[in-house]
């Protein structure tokens, strides 16, 4: 199966230079549609998506990451660096147990 990267044109360039297929997304509004399209390809193993576009894809991102076994959806930082600090695994777990 394949790896592809959904990224803004700059970040996509880095993956393109490495020979990894990319789906460049210039406008944030297109993120959800592109992600959906990628997720529906049968040979897709891992889909990398930049944090910014993952946020922009909103519900579509949730759907792909929670309701499908494949592709595996991984967030990556883009060329502007990580947007926000992530919760560590332990912090997420604590949030679940606290409820």
């Amino acid at each position: 199966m394949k790896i592809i990267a959904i990224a803004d044109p700059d970040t996509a360039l880095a993956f393109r230079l490495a020979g990894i297929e990319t789906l460049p997304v210039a406008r944030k509004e297109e993120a959800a549609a592109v992600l959906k399209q990628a997720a529906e390809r049968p040979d897709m193993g891992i889909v990398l998506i930049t944090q910014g576009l993952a946020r922009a894809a909103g519900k579509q991102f949730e759907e792909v990451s929670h309701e499908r076994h494949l592709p595996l959806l991984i967030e990556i930082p883009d060329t502007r660096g990580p947007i926000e600090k992530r919760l560590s695994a332990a912090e997420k777990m604590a949030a679940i147990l606290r409820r």
Partner: protein
Amino acid sequence: MERLLIPVTKSNAIRIKDELSLAKDGEQLLDQKKDILINHINLLAGKADRVRKQLDDALLAAYDQLKRALIESGRSQLEAAGLAVDANLDVTIRERSLMGVVLPLVSVNRPRLRPEYGLAGTTKQMDEVRHRILSAVETIAELAEVEIGLQRLMEETKRTLKRINALSYIYIPLYEATLKSIQERLEEKERESLFQLKRVKGKAGKGLGV
């Protein structure tokens, strides 16, 4: 206390008792499942954080090189170089199941690095970007395995906790209350009929003069 509105009969009492013991077994089983899930999450948690940081760092370093390459060669040349390259990565994803949660097992087959574009027209910076991204591929596979496994385990834990709560705070108390009230009413009825029986016996005895 709330109770189920069902007729007060002996057979209902037996049925409720059975269901109650089933619910308690279920609660215990779910509790064990929760413990196993949490154990596994604890195993993965540290690794997930570590691999995530490793990938972020590796990518950021690659982007740094990319910026230099952009300055040096310009966008169009980079895009042209990118067109010619194909890393031929092959991802294999197998699955294993832990307590009904499907955990991915990911491996990537990366062909040996070889120059894909002509030496003319590309720069050291471009090669450096390519090299860094490709070196990060194994980390990507590892992260996919760990992070997604972890995410699925956490979702299952959430669902399991919900079920445990529903059982121990709603279902079981409701059935206990119902069982108790049915049993009390049954006993009451029994006493009543015993009393009536005694009275009838007494009357009958007098009437016959025995």
